[in-house]
């Protein structure tokens, strides 16, 4: 399990927290506003409590200017 991976029951990990930090310490509210979601949903995604839809995943990746695989990863420890 690499850096940035959260402990959760969901099979998808994410790097949103690190990417926000690297993009001028973008707040959860700013990211939420950029993709049309609530701040609480961004917080839930970051905490590994909610897996976003494919469309939302692409929208998040576009905000950071990276591919979706740079933001979300399948956990190798799970089948």
């Amino acid at each position, binding site marked *: 399990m690499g850096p940035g991976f959260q402990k*959760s029951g969901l099979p998808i990990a994410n790097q949103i927290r690190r990417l926000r930090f690297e993009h001028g310490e973008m707040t959860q509210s700013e990211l939420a506003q950029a993709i*049309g*979601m*609530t*701040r*609480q*949903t961004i917080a*839930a995604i970051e*905490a590994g*409590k*909610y897996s*976003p*839809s494919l469309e*939302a995943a692409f929208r998040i990746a576009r905000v950071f200017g990276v591919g979706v695989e740079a933001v979300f990863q399948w956990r190798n420890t799970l089948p």
Partner: protein
Amino acid sequence: MSFREKSAWITLISVLLCFGAYFGAIVTGHITGRGLSSMLLLVVCGVALVVLQAALHILAAITSPADARAPRDERELLIQGRAHSLGYYVLTGLVLSLFIPVHLGHSAIDIANFALLSLVLTTLAVAGAQIVMFRRGV
């Protein structure tokens, strides 16, 4: 806390307060034999519920206006859908259980109160499920 979660809390608390008072009065009336009329109680508690819900929702909207104006996002829609799906099963079970008081020969007003209780319990189950999913994740 998001506006939708606040809304679920408002529903849970206001329904508990208003219909807790209603059914408390109904049960007390049955025990003592000197209760107010069910219709009068229902009107009073119904109006109190509407006023309380409206006031608390306005207060919640004032404290987070942008959140209140924004449409539900995909997570909120998922939570709403799952909670209402659960509510459907709760309501189905409770409505089917209405045959029990009918079979036991309860009065029409008692049956109406059991039906109202079914709606109240379903509303509480939906609001409670929403709160749990907002807190624990979906």
